[in-house]
């Protein structure tokens, strides 16, 4: 036990003295989060907005003027038919449309409540959401302005619809996605490199000659990276919550446990890679380049897996980050409990056991 502690301490020395490792470990996630976060949620300006005013009364005109005067929209008051909207979305000539039903002003003034429809192109979910938010904000301001008394406020209810992507997937998706991506790449790459480095430097031979058990070498290698990866996970979570305002709906404990499982999956994968390669470069290339693209594509946070050809859907099943992504999305964004993610958890657990078995087996055969 004391030997193990000595070993773990040594691994921490390695990590903290290697600026490159630290940079990959903590720089990469921060860069990813910030890049993805701000690139995806940045302000949208000069959106061409098609307005269809079926009411043509004072209120609808006032509201249109308000929208025009904001800097976000270029308003296109076309008189296209309601039925042609779908077509113009398909052609891509319209990205968003605002529709006033007939009798908008009448409803508002006599009923105190009127409806408004916003249609957006959900294939670009971030712009779509932003547009909805902008218009909602403008209408809210407007309804307060024209309400006769605070006791009897007018309400304008904007009904928004995102074509092609009713759920509005995408804007929040990327946080679990980046978490899956970063943990997968960082854990796998760093673990594999740390074992291979010992081989390359010749210290592995010394360790194998020592009474230290080979299995313990693997454990001692994995533990520091497990701890660091968990720290990494917390860092990403903090960034998500405090910098990008993504709320955590579900249980943090569950999130933590699931992430720990996923990290162990990745560590096992890293150990497996390290057993099959002999140079740090190969290990790094395999784990970073070889994993980056499949992880990005098959995790499902950039491109919906459901829309892929069958063969790719099948391939995506063997990518651990895909399952982790599903779990995290359910727990973090939808607030679901373990009863909804146990299947995915089981898949991850199975993968971990398989990878770990292969890693241990290969490690032993290298001795004889």
């Amino acid at each position: 036990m004391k030997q193990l502690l000595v070993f773990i301490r040594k691994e921490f020395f390695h990590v903290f003295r290697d600026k490159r490792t630290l940079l990959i470990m903590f720089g990469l996630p921060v860069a990813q989060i910030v890049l993805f976060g701000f690139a995806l949620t940045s302000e949208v300006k000069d959106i061409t907005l098609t307005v269809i005013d079926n009411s043509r009364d004072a209120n609808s005109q006032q509201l249109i003027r308000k929208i025009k005067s904001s800097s976000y929209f270029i308003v296109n008051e076309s008189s296209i038919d309601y039925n042609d909207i779908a077509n113009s979305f398909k052609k891509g000539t319209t990205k968003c449309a605002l529709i006033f039903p007939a009798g908008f002003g009448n409803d508002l003034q006599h009923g105190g409540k009127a409806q408004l429809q916003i249609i957006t192109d959900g294939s670009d979910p971030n712009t779509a959401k932003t547009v909805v938010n902008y218009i909602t904000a403008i209408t809210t301001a407007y309804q307060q302005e024209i309400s006769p008394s605070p006791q009897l406020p007018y309400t304008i209810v904007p009904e928004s619809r995102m074509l092609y992507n009713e759920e509005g997937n995408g804007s929040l998706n990327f946080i679990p996605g980046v978490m899956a991506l970063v943990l997968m790449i960082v854990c796998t790459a760093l673990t594999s490199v740390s074992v291979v480095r010992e081989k390359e430097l010749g210290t592995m031979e010394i360790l194998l000659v020592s009474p230290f058990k080979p299995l313990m070498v693997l454990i001692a290698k994995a533990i520091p990276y497990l701890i660091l990866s968990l720290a990494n996970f917390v860092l990403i979570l903090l960034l998500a919550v405090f910098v990008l305002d993504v709320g955590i709906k579900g249980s943090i404990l569950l999130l933590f446990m699931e992430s720990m499982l996923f990290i162990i999956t990745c560590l096992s994968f890293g150990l497996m890679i390290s057993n099959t390669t002999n140079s740090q470069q190969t290990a790094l290339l395999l784990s970073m380049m070889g994993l980056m693209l499949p992880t990005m594509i098959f995790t499902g946070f950039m491109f919906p897996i459901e829309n892929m050809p069958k063969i790719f859907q099948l391939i995506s099943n063997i990518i651990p980050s895909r399952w982790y992504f599903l779990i995290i999305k359910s727990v973090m964004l939808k607030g679901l409990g373990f009863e909804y993610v146990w299947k995915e958890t089981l898949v991850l657990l199975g993968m971990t056991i398989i990878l770990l078995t292969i890693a241990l087996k290969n490690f032993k055969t290298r001795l004889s």
Partner: protein
Amino acid sequence: MEEKVIVCKDLTKRFGDFYAVNKISFEVNKGEIFGFLGANGAGKTTAMRILCGLSHPTSGEAMVAGFDVYKQPESIKKNIGYMSQKFSLYENLTVVENIEFFGGVYGVSSSEIRKRSDNLIQKLGLTAEAKKLVGALPLGWKQKLAFSVAIFHQPRIVFLDEPTGGVDPVTRRQFWDMIYEAAASGITIFVTTHYMDEAEYCNRVTIMVDGKIEALDSPANLKTQFEADNMDEVFYRLARRAKRSGD
């Protein structure tokens, strides 16, 4: 009767139909400096790896420090030290941290580690460098430190695989002084080398050719036997017979 710490009988290691080590037999006495010579690819390293428990022999017998290489590799590991051709300390750990790590891995107690490492650092004259990273030390010092670390847990036998490669002559001399000192304290030294002047420092040497032991005696006896002026000549006469080329 002297105590034997290594006993090999018909030790063989075969990879496919290639005999890396072919029926070698020898004995090493306690406190002896035993030189293991041979051209590249002659089978020295393979033989040494078997004795260290890194590799399993195909056939034959071997006892190291009184333990069987087949049945008790773990006991062997506790009783030996090893220094490889490659520099084998951690460059991004300090001198003290390296000592603490290897001491700890061999199960030396913390208080004992502190005591011995203080002595060691003083003896090596590394007091000023104790907290510096090993990577910053000159090669000669690194090698001396690596040797000291290899015998830090006071093993019965220490295996040195070409320990002085790339080291300047003065440092090599100092290195051999350390080897003599260790041997005097009762540690058996098993050393492979390419330098024939170093072979002269050994109590006995074996010369391996094509996986077999072609000669085994004290340097003086070998010179008489082969009618040579120095070990260089002895080595050339034997190595010329080699059929397989080096790697």
